[in-house]
């Protein structure tokens, strides 16, 4: 046995590694992935992650349905996706191997927990023969480790019962993988000690398992497989590894802080949006009120009630919830009150694929209300961008007194990336003033408050209950501009319908112009929105590196569009729009700008990979 220091020289340096941890839901793969991510982040790699859960809470152990996976891409330079085909697969049981093998790249390293490859498990996974023996893994680098038994063994010494010891086998895997890919041990050890504080046996078991994994690498002479990825050269600053739902929650809190109004969240649990409710409910000391309503309609209703009262009313949900909120959103449009409506999109239609990602709610966001009921729409493009977009949504809502739809998706919600923390001083300065004075005169010459008088942004005054002398009534029946009185006159309705449309279009005035990246003078422009940003950016990067000319533009504002979008589109011969739907933005662009935009569509519950995008863009441009 040589010592570790010695071996280090043999470690091959690579630019990037993509590892996929896969096991039974009960195997703790999400945690393992998280730990590996943390260690990599602290080490200074750029990274992106993609957790994938089964739809069942706890599907029967050992079955394909129960497989839980976590993919992480670590790199020594700026990356934007969790990677195409993984270079490494950790399979804790046969089901995991079966479910994941076709996702990884040819020649990849496959690390298996051999203990789990016994008859019952093989059968449950639907393997007639043992894939470790029948040539299934030919062409892969196979690393076989009896993780369960080795973990039990090291745990025996410290007095942990075998059944409990078994639970630590994911730390064995983590130890082994960390050794193989040169992750520092310290952060994980610290974490274990904090997390399990007071449960000394658990701490000891996990530490021992981790070290056993480490040692297994050494003893099994796996040095040939060792790789290292250097820290990335990222802009200086303090970083944290963040997922979209957390970033979104914090963005809302930040916006509330900036605008000086308390948050009120009315929500009904639904995957993958629930974590925003969970996160916000932890921050009551920020004055955040969270209300778990009886359904989605009550959720948005309560948020609207809070907005009426001068709070920033928010409602969070996923597609099915938005489908239920349509009528209330129409009311919000008519009332012209600020309201933030957050849709963490998932696979549809109907219950669809609750735990998978998709971006097919854009049209519903745009049109899912009766009558002409326009609503601004913004979309986040990466986990950390959720923070910024949340602030932008609040800005639009309070400045223009309008409900705003914010679109994110399951991929952004749970995926993570390192995020350079903004300084609080640099956050956008938002502000709003409640009305405090009368602004009209009634027939008898008395000063009164008119709720639908408009300022230069065409926004009406926000006069909250409790304000001296501004008593007024608002409602969903058509009203007269200015006075806000119920008005059924034909001309008034026509006027109001157009006014509501125009006032939303007017928001474009405060949307910064879009910037085209890549080869501005290319023939082909790739237009994206939402979470496709990472894959598109990476694909465009690869194509350009290979000498192809491509331009890219990514939209945060879906309604109204940034003011220069039409002009940009006009400059390109070919406009290609990758979307995780059947072509929703594509249709909007075609209708508005009459450009022959073409969709590259993927609706499989999975994000695009950069590789497949390159191929499909090439197909379109050939």
């Amino acid at each position, binding site marked *: 046995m040589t010592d570790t220091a010695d071996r280090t020289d043999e470690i091959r340096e690579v630019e990037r590694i993509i590892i996929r941890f896969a096991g039974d839901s009960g195997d703790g793969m999400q945690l393992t992935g998280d730990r590996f991510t943390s260690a990599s982040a602290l080490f200074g790699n750029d990274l992106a992650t993609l957790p994938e859960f089964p739809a069942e809470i706890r599907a029967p152990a050992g079955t394909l349905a129960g497989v839980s996976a976590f993919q992480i891409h670590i790199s020594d330079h700026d990356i934007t996706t969790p990677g195409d085909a993984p270079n490494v697969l950790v399979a804790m049981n046969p089901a995991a191997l079966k479910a994941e093998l076709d996702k990884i790249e040819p020649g990849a390293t496959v690390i298996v927990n051999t203990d789990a490859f016994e008859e019952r498990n093989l059968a449950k996974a639907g393997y007639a023969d043992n894939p470790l023996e029948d040539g299934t893994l030919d062409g892969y680098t196979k690393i076989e480790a009896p993780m369960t038994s080795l973990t039990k063994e090291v745990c025996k010494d410290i007095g942990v019962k075998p059944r409990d010891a078994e639970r630590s086998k994911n730390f064995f895997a983590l130890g082994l993988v960390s050794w193989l890919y040169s992750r520092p041990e310290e952060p994980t050890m610290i974490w274990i000690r904090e997390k399990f504080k007071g449960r000394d046996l658990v701490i000891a078991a996990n530490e021992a398992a981790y070290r056993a994994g480490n040692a297994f690498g050494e003893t099994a002479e796996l040095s040939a497989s060792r790789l290292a990825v250097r820290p990335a050269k990222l802009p200086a600053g*303090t970083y944290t590894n963040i997922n979209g739902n957390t970033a979104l929650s914090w963005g809302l*809190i930040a916006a509330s802080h900036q605008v000086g109004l308390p948050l009120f969240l009315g929500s009904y649990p639904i995957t993958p949006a629930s974590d925003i409710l969970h996160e916000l409910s932890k*921050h009551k000391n920020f004055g955040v009120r969270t209300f778990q*309503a*009886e359904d989605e309609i009550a959720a948005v209703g309560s948020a609207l*009630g*809070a907005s009426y009262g001068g*709070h920033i009313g928010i409602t969070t949900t996923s597609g099915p919830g938005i489908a239920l909120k349509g009528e209330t959103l129409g009311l919000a449009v008519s009332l012209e009150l600020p309201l933030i409506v957050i849709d963490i999109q998932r696979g549809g239609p109907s219950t669809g694929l609750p735990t998978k990602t998709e971006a097919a709610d854009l049209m519903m966001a745009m049109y899912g209300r009766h009558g002409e009921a326009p609503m601004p729409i913004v979309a986040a493009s990466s986990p950390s961008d959720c923070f910024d977009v949340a602030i932008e949504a609040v800005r639009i809502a309070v400045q223009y007194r309008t409900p705003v739809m914010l679109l994110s998706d399951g991929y952004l919600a749970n995926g993570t990336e390192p995020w350079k923390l903004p300084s609080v001083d640099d956050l956008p300065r938002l502000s709003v003033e409640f009305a405090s004075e009368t602004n009209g005169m009634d027939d008898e010459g008395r000063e009164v408050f008119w709720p639908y008088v408009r300022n230069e942004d065409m926004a009406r005054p926000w006069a909250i209950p409790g304000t001296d002398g501004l008593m007024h*009534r608002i409602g969903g029946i058509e009203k007269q501009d200015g006075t806000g009185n119920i008005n059924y006159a034909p001309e008034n309705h026509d006027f109001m319908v157009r006014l509501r449309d125009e006032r939303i279009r007017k928001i474009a005035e405060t949307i910064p112009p879009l910037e085209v990246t890549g080869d501005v003078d290319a023939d082909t422009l790739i237009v994206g929105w939402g979470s496709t940003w990472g894959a598109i950016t990476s694909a465009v990067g690869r194509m350009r590196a290979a000498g192809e000319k491509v331009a890219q533009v990514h939209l945060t504002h879906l309604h109204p569009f940034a003011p220069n979008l039409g002009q940009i589109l006009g400059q390109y011969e070919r406009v290609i729009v990758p979307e995780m739907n059947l072509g929703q933005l594509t249709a909007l662009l075609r209708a508005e700008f009459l450009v022959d935009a073409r969709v590259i569509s993927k609706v499989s519950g999975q994000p695009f990979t950069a590789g497949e995008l390159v191929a499909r863009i090439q197909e379109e441009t050939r």
Partner: protein
Amino acid sequence: MTAVPLTTKKDWSSDQEVRWCPGCGDYSILTAMQLLMPEIDRRREDTVFISGIGCAARFPYYMNTYGMHSIHGRSPAIATGLAMARPDLDVWVVGGDGDMLSIGGNHLIHALRRNVNLTILLFNNQIYGLTKGQYSPTSEVGKVTKSTPMGSLDHPFNPISLALGAEATFVARTHDMDRGHMQEMFRRAHAHKGAALVEVYQNCNVFNDGAFGAITKKDARDAMLIDLKHGEPVRFGAENERGVMITDDGAQIVNVADVGEDKILVHDETADRGIAFALSGLAQDRESPTPIGVFRAVDRQEYGEAASAQLAAAQEANGPGDLDMLLRSLPTWDVS
């Protein structure tokens, strides 16, 4: 809180023309309210009426307070958000039997169980007025309406029973023919901390005229209205000769003389829900004696206050939110 100025009915009346059918019971409810408000120690500025859609739901337009005429059935949900966000306000909810019990039934029962600080007025005319006369969830079985030419089949809700089943802390009933009683119920409901439901029997003279005539007209009241009064025996009749007794078979109407005065139930607003529920069951049709008054009034944690208390406790424990600290609350690392 700002001092409450002296006001009169006129101060509480908005400048909007009242647009109910001539003769509608809604007028007398509105008048009762506008006359009552000056006596309640809240400013118009701190008062909000939230309603859904329906004839009844027009109510907020006529009150010179803050108000929202929202959408059908959702007023309890909207009001819940407002009351939670702004515990300083006095939030009233008004709606019809369709609005609150049909499309809005779920929001109502959840607001009741949560005990949100709302004063909820349910104008029960046993019909859909605004949509011109379909039967409602409180209409009697066999009702012939536009949508039920052969008679309706649905067994009606008893709003009092439903509210009690939904864990309401304050439940009362009154009717549009008795301004004093209405005002007393509104006043009591308003004073209650938490969700207070008042069912108001309201005559829709266009589509369901006289629905309550058999019990609310002056000369019928003695025999047909059982006026519940806390601490008093539950008795009624011209000579107070009838009363209510609790047995293993529930609440029974008896002749006091037959059973003896001491067997008569003494009304206790704070008693077990079962008794209030049994009382609510006495009015199963338009021809049987019907209890009015406060069925139940008990103290329980008010929702908005409890929510605010959690905010205060969180601040107490963790200090006021510090944004910079929040951003650094997950593991961080520095790149230089």
